[in-house]
């Protein structure tokens, strides 16, 4: 599932998270809206790995994964934005250390300051096309806006 061209909103998650890539001069990033925390967090993970796997604008079906595994993750943050960064940093570490890519998440606990989840990760059959050096705090935003959740994340590439 790609994240599309800069400026356009599209679905990124089965739970109706919507994503819009940001056109940053040097780096890459996106904005997200979602109805639930679960959709926000899994949508952000899908968005980050779409960038890593280079499927932003590629509508071709992706080749099947070579293998899958499941790992438990727990993180905390002083607020929703920090928790979102902590979550993505853990997934990025698993990618850097073990070449695993995100496929799905089952949240056992998730509030605005802590999460515990079982994540499904894959050994992708295709090499990653982009190196994300870090999940930055620059322009970081994650907040409730009416009944929806809104987030913005920029990555250093």
């Amino acid at each position: 599932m790609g994240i599309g061209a800069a400026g356009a909103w599209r679905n990124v998650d089965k739970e109706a998270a919507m994503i819009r890539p940001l056109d940053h001069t040097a780096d890459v990033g996106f904005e997200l809206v979602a109805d639930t925390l679960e959709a926000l967090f899994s949508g952000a993970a899908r968005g980050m790995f779409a960038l890593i796997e280079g499927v932003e604008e590629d509508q071709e079906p992706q080749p099947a994964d070579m293998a899958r595994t499941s790992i438990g993750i727990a993180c905390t943050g002083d607020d929703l934005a920090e928790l979102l960064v902590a979550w993505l940093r853990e997934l990025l570490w698993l990618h850097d250390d073990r070449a695993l890519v995100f496929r799905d998440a089952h949240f056992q606990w998730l509030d605005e300051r802590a999460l515990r989840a079982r994540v499904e990760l894959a050994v992708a059959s295709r090499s990653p096309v982009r190196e994300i050096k870090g999940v930055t705090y620059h322009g970081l935003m994650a907040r409730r806006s009416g009944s929806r959740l809104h987030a913005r994340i920029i990555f250093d590439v």
Partner: protein
Amino acid sequence: MSDQPALELRRLDEFRWLIPRQGRMRVDGLIFASEAMMHELHGDEAVRQVANVACLPGITGRSIGMPDIHWGYGFAIGGVAAFDAEQGGVVSPGGVGYDINCGVRLLRSRIDATTLEPVLPRLMDRLLRDIPAGVGAGHEHFRLSDEDVRSVLREGAGWAVSRGFGTAADLEHIEAGGRLPDADPDAVSERARKRGRDQLGTVGSGNHFIEIGCVDQVFDAAAADRLGLAPGTVTVLIHSGSRGLGYQVCDDSLVIMQQAARTYGIELPDRQLACAPLHSPEATHYFGAMNAAANYAFANRQMMAHRVREAFEQELRLSWSDLGMGLVYDVAHNIAKWETHDGRRLCVHRKGATRAFPPGHAELAPAYRDLGQPVLIPGDMARYSFVLLGTERAYRETFGSTCHGAGRRMSRTKAKRSARDRNLHAEFRALGIEVRASSFATVAEEIPEAYKDVADVVDVVDRAGIGRKVARLRPLGVLKG
């Protein structure tokens, strides 16, 4: 992205633009740019970021933007700022960046570019095979133990030389001798050290590269001669940094600094500017880890230079010393360092900026002390790169700093869109440039038009007096990640 009011901007002269102290700024901002560059920057987040840095505690002088400035995260890329510990100054990992000691190394040679032409395709194939490049690429058969990684973090380029990757003479031509003091391997997390085990001597991806080029224009014949840059001779530029180890050090430090900013009551205009007072334990920890990562980067470029020399030896059947492949210089682009300016010890952050010390500076290598510090400014893949020297004016006005490259003007998404349906291989070959890459997706993001013309950038620093042009290099072959 900013919803704040527009910043007041005042033109001082042809190439200097002042952001007068306003709002929460503690000092003025100063941007070096031509009128055309400033027009392009109008409304850009980079200008706002120069002003944001001016809000940090203990900043002294001015918050500075170089002509290659562009929107970064926290600090703009192309930003310089100095902080005084005695005035509550801070250190900020966002002022250094994820790729700690991302920098450039230049090798010269006595090889005439025309004699290299017939073997260039084979040479480029060999470099692609012998030097890992690409997203997360590491060595398959060269993996350091944790103890070795710790030694690299302490010893820098000297570690590589002690194991036969280069000579002691190389160390005399590297900023700080290729080893920053006060590096603390214990301040580098296990995750970071693990990431460093198989990436020493690798290019990486993004804007990193190894470029075989030649000297195609000389502006200062005497200085070029001192640097061994004879017209028409082959050169090698290596652009890379501390790889995953450095990214992890930055990442780990940012978490600590978020907390530190709260502990010390530092109000941040951007969370990526998280920082800690220079005398705090958090700052000491960061310096220990950052200097260690910087040493890893010096060793990384040392290892790659050795592999490049070996590749030339294989293809030209002469030793690298017979080919005259000495090291001109190796300099950091992303670093924070303690330096003395006007008698004060300051912490100077350079993020996408180059140290440019003038002739006579005590920290310069003896070989260059009377000449001034060589400054290496890579351009894009198709046009040219420049060699400059540091100046007295840079020392007075920019804490001894100048630009670092061309500066991006097009987002990666736009660049990829622009490259779609084009035969980039053929385009580069038509320009006489052999390109090798582990993935052409990287090349698409790095197309020449994605960057400003580095000649314009260098022209500004030369005419503003914060750098002095010596020579221009033209690419012949480029290895990308």
